Structures are given as structure tokens and as C-alpha cells.
């Protein structure tokens, strides 16, 4: 499991993540999403998986943390 994050370059503020998993995603005053601090490891929760699968911009990513090198990789969306 990796660390959850929202790619600010891709997020366009559809707010699907917030609608489906408000305990993990917050929306700023311009409408863009980020992961609530402390919730970076909630990627296995069903609501969060649902948010990942429904984000129209595929902007919710997981940063692999198991290896030494920090590598950002898109979560499987199938």
C-alpha cells in the first residue's frame, strides 16, 4: 500500500472524491481536492477505492513507499 495524494496538476475540482469519501478528501475554496492530513494511508478503505475509480481526471494517485526511491504511480483504476 502506498501513500495517497491528489495530483494538483490533474485535479479539476469535480469533487467526486469528496462526495464519496469525505473522511479522506477535502476541497479548498477554489474547489480543488487534497487528502486530509493524517488520511494518507486510507487507500484500502472501500469508499476511498470508490473515489479513486470515479475521479474523472484520474487525479488520485498512490506514491509507492515500499522502496527506497520515491516513485509516484497511478493507482490501478480497473
Amino acid at each position, binding site marked *: 500500500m502506498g501513500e495517497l495524494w491528489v495530483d494538483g496538476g*490533474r485535479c*479539476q*475540482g*469535480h*469533487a467526486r472524491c*469528496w*462526495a464519496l469519501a469525505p473522511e479522506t478528501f477535502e*476541497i479548498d*475554496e*477554489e*474547489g480543488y481536492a487534497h487528502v486530509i492530513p493524517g488520511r494518507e494511508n486510507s487507500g484500502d478503505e472501500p469508499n476511498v477505492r*470508490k473515489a479513486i*475509480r*470515479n*475521479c*474523472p*481526471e*484520474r487525479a488520485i494517485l498512490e506514491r509507492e513507499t515500499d522502496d527506497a526511491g520515491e516513485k509516484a504511480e497511478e493507482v490501478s*483504476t480497473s
Partner: protein
Amino acid sequence: MSTETERGLSHNKSDFDFHGRALDNIFDDYQDMLANGPVGHSDKYGGFWYITKSEDIFNAEQDPDTFAVGPSMLLPAFGTDVPLIPIDIDPPTHADFRKILLPMFTPMNVSKLGPGMRETARQLCQEVLAAGDVVDVSAKLARPMPTIIFSRLAGYPEQDWPIFDRWIDEIIYERTAHPETAYAAGRELNDYFDRLLDEREKAGPEADASNDLITQLLKAEVKGRKLTREELLSYCYLLFLAGLDTTAWAIRSALWYLAGNPQAQQQLREDPDLIPTAAEEFLRTLSPVQAMARTAKADTVVRGQEIKAGERVVLVFGAGNRDPEVYEEPNEIKIDREDNRHLAFGGGIHRCLGSNLGRAEMVIAMEEFLKAVPHFERANNDEPWHGVGPLTLKIGA
């Protein structure tokens, strides 16, 4: 030999149209296009390439340098040849204009409007019930609800609301068959906003407290300067057409489906928490905006098909939303479909600014209608889906 043949086009639907009555029974055509020629050329509206696969539409939306919106995202134009702000504006200027209203359309701001929206929906549902056993719910609910809600938010004076429907009909729905009617109505709409802006500017700073969309636009700055009158008019023009009609279409489509599917109606009555999920499915399958145009800024290739710089390209959201590669049983409307990454609001930098408001209105309309009306069905059982026009329902116990 046609250019298309020279360029190796294997499958072509040269009369493909995405407006008006052309949408009746369009879904079989979409499946055919997706399977046999996902990129093709139509001769309509001066000629355009159409892109139907979900993945290709996504990629085009993510690449605004190649797939630009200028001169116009609307094909044909929306009763005016002035570029509409912000949808007809390309980067880098686009973001400056879009930023002005982003805060007004966040889900948090939209949820503040919730109680008012619900009250409006309740009143309109009572009027539906009072109107008798056979009622046009398009005229009684689907159209007035977004008009009232958006007009309040935007700051259009209440006494003006009754004339709005005609402008929408003429600009949006007459523009293919009667472009001159659309342009005439477009000028009326433009003059209307010109007068409204004059009044607002005369009213001065006291009016600023109202915090509506027009006030926000008047206060806004782009690169350290106020918007010009032309820019204000263009922004107002777009907001009017985008804010009112699409939501009416979405509500109408949801009610059309539920009226013809008593089981789905029952399921949502028993489990109202499912309504937001159902709303997404209606947005996917009966999208208010079936397609939007781009212009290729450079020569490019989509799925092997060459597209030349300067050519028009239409992203067919309605087809992408039924792409069997993305959705299981794409033509089935499953109101509990949970994985629903649809394209109904577009994506990339031009994602529909009002998507959070549109969704909220749709959900509230369904919730209140199901609560107020114990049973409803289509007066004409065979009525096909249309996003516009009357929707006559039999209302009863």
C-alpha cells in the same frame, strides 16, 4: 476521390449529427461507431472529425495545446460569434477568467444553497400535484427549478424570469434549423445583460453586498484590471445558457426514466440514499451535453486517423459514456452502478464549472418529486427519450 478515402478512413458516418431530433435513437449509432469506426468524419456544420472512445476523449481533454477550444466550443455557434468566456478561451488566459467564479461553485458553497433549492423544489412539486392527473413536468418542474435557482444565484431580477425560456429555446434549440432566429435572440440576450450591467453599475457599491454572480464579475480583476464590458457580456451570456438549460435537461431525463421504470422508482423510494448514485447513471446514459467541439492546433493522429491543424473535432461524450471498454453493459441504465467515471461534465481544464450545482439540483428534484408524488408514469408509454420538449406524466396514488 474524397479526402477521407485518401486518408484511409475505413468507416465513416458522414451525416452524423448530435443536435435535436438527431439524438432520437442515437445510442445504436454510438455502439456502431464505437465498434466499427471510433474516429470518423461528418459533413455537418462545415465538417468535423468525431471522437467517440472514452479514452480518446479523455486524452484530448487533457491536451488543450493540441485540442484547443478557440474559436468556439459550440458547434454551431450559440447565437453569437463572440468567443464565450471562459469556454472558448484557451490557456494561458483561460485560467484567469475561470478563477473568478470557481469559489461560487464549490460543493461547500453549493450546499449553502441547499435549503433554498429544496424549498423551491417542494413548491414546484406542489404545483405539479395541483395541476391535475396528467401534467407536463418539464414545464412545471424541470425547467422552472433551474431557472429560479440559477437566477437567484446569478442576480437576474425575478420579474424577468418568464422570458428566459424563449431565449433558451431559440438560441440553443433553433440554431441548427433557424440560425437567424438564434442570432436575433442572441442579440436580445446580449442587450438584456447590457442593461442589467448598466443598472448594477449605477446602483454602485451598495449592490455589491448581494454577492451574486453578476456582482462577482463586476468586482473581479484579471491580470490587475477589471473586465471590459465586452468580457462581462460574454461571461454573462455563457452563464445564462449553460446554467439554465443543462440542468433542466438532466432533471427531465431522470424523471422520464423513472416514470417508465416503476421498479427503479420503487427502489429509490425505499432507499433514497441511492438517489445520488442514480443521478450519476442518468448523467452517464442521458447526458445533457452529448458533444463539445475543439479545433486541432497542430496535425495530430487519433487511433490511426490523421487530423490536420485547423480542422474541427467533436468529442462525443454521449458515445464515450457508453463505451463497452469502460462500462459493463453500457446501454443498461443501472441506478446502483457504483463505478461510474463518466464524461458528462467534460474534463480537463474546461470541466463544467457548474457541475456541483447541477448535481445538487438533480438530486434534490428527484428526492422531492419522489416524496411528493406517490406514483407516476408516462402518459405515453412509448415516448422516447428527449432532453427537451414536454414530458407528460400520469400522476396518481
